[in-house]
């Protein structure tokens, strides 16, 4: 465990992250329910972004089909409940979604781990759409376009006798926050592990990686499996929060959202997709609330990102911070 002294030095070193963590921990105390729920969604998208960015930022592969895997994970909770009528504790479904998603990733990876660039993107786009059409059209099995209701499950085997709103903003919120921190830690370890560095080497220079004795397809495949598994896990966390699964979450514009939130946060930075997930969700929800032309607004913001802040919010923050403190050069995240 971290000693008290160590903790203080970490807080000194990363004041902004400390602040964010404190805000996240205390949020339900003072924030309105609606906002707390949106942050919960944002945290789930943060996990999705981390999983997605293992491919984009660390392996150099852009998937335009992750919404399909997210939906797959969500349905791995709603479908068993729909067909058995029994509601187990959530962890059962999380494990189930994680394992089935990993299996899905292993299968699809056979086809796409050997492809890069645009072909990888289009293949994943199509995988996502096949998943979409499956959920949409096997209506007898999946509920079709209407989707499937997801009841509030027990957490850690415990049922909570509270109303739905309180459950979401207090109990499930902390559950998600815990899951988020666990995933964050896992991904931090992955990208800083031997395997993570190997992926980055493959991303930077495929040929050199091969001549360093690295089996590039194998590690791309493994990265793909991890990414799909955690995306499915995020989808499964999302299901009880949303209370409903419908095929539209597999639709490819949602894959576009995942790409967008990652770039918004800054895909060159580990924390980028997390910041992106939180900001993007809040932003999207409020713009949808204020204007019918939210896609237009998203599009324009995307243009600004592409042409003016390609390193995303984190990159922007770092360069502002560096300018304020008169430090030169860029630093890694």
């Amino acid at each position: 465990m971290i000693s008290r002294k160590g903790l203080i030095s970490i807080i000194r070193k990363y004041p902004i992250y400390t602040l964010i963590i404190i805000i996240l921990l205390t949020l339900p105390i003072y924030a309105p329910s609606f906002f707390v729920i949106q942050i919960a969604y944002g945290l789930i998208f943060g996990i999705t972004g981390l999983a997605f960015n293992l491919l984009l930022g660390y392996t150099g592969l852009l998937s335009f089909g992750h919404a399909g895997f997210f939906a797959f994970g969500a349905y791995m909770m709603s479908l068993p409940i729909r067909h058995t009528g029994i509601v187990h504790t959530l962890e059962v479904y999380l494990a189930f979604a994680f394992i089935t998603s990993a299996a899905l990733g292993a299968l699809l990876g056979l086809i796409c781990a050997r492809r890069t660039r645009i072909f990888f993107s289009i293949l994943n786009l199509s995988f996502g759409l096949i998943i979409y059409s499956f959920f949409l059209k096997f209506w007898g099995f999946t509920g079709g376009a209407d989707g499937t209701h997801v009841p509030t499950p027990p957490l850690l085997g415990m049922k909570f006798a509270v109303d739905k709103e309180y459950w979401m903003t207090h109990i499930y919120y902390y559950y998600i926050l815990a899951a988020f921190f666990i995933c964050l830690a896992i991904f931090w370890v992955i990208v800083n592990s031997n395997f993570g560095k190997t992926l980055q080497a493959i991303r930077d220079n495929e040929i050199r990686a091969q001549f360093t004795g690295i089996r590039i397809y194998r590690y791309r495949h493994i990265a793909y499996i991890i990414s799909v598994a955690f995306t499915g896990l995020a989808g499964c966390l999302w299901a009880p929060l949303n209370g409903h699964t419908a095929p539209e979450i597999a639709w490819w514009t949602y894959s576009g959202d995942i790409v967008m939130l990652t770039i918004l946060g800054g895909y060159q930075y580990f924390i980028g997709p997390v910041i992106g997930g939180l900001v993007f969700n809040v932003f999207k929800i409020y713009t949808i609330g204020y204007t019918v032309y939210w896609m237009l607004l998203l599009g324009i913001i995307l243009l600004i990102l592409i042409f003016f802040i390609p390193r995303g919010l984190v990159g922007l923050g770092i360069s502002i911070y560096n300018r304020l403190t008169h430090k030169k050069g860029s630093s890694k995240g």
Partner: protein
Amino acid sequence: MILETQNLRKYFGEVHAVDNVNFKVKEEEIVAIIGPNGAGKTTLVNVITGYLKPDGGKIIFMGKDITNASIYERIRAGIVRSFQLVNIFEGLSAFDNIRVAINSRERKEGKIFSLIDRDTTVTKEALQILDLFGLPKDTLARDLPHGDRKLLDVATAFALKPKLLLLDEPTSGVSTREKNKIMDVIIPAARKEKVSLVVIEHDMDIVFNYSDRIVVMHQGKILFEGKPDEVREHTEVKRVLLVG
């Protein structure tokens, strides 16, 4: 003999880039390949290392026929190369470039849950290599000056602990002063690690000063081979080298 090619051939259309070449390298020997542009030096290295498939002939490495071995199998057998144009992991620090290579050598490159910083033996070895090559630790490879990038390329190859190391113009594009610095690092390292070295090089001073044996290639064939002094005196070689 650590490496032997038998009638090795590689044609590109009408161009006979490697034309029935019998090329040999002894244990712990430092061989320079010289010859004019287009003589087939890089193609020979590309075929030996598995980057290109030969059109004919055999490659024997430590007694084993590796003509059809994959790149991966060749690396594992101990054949490692560097490239003419700098070929490094641009987005990683010099330190991580080396550590990735050591991990690969130690078959630890796929460990998902072991933090790279926690591995003290690998870290220590990587620091030693960086020190040996005089490279900074945390600078991203893409931000290094050109001479250091070339060195990093070679250092990564060394980190794989090869038995046979093929360097394609390790000093191209660096200044004369730095050239000698690079060779003064590489050659003792090769001697110390008992690595057989094959170097493609243009700078004759370097070739004569640092190699045990010189192989002269011309139009895809080995024109002459011998000790530096023999090559220096050979009139036909002189003509080819001076005028192509």
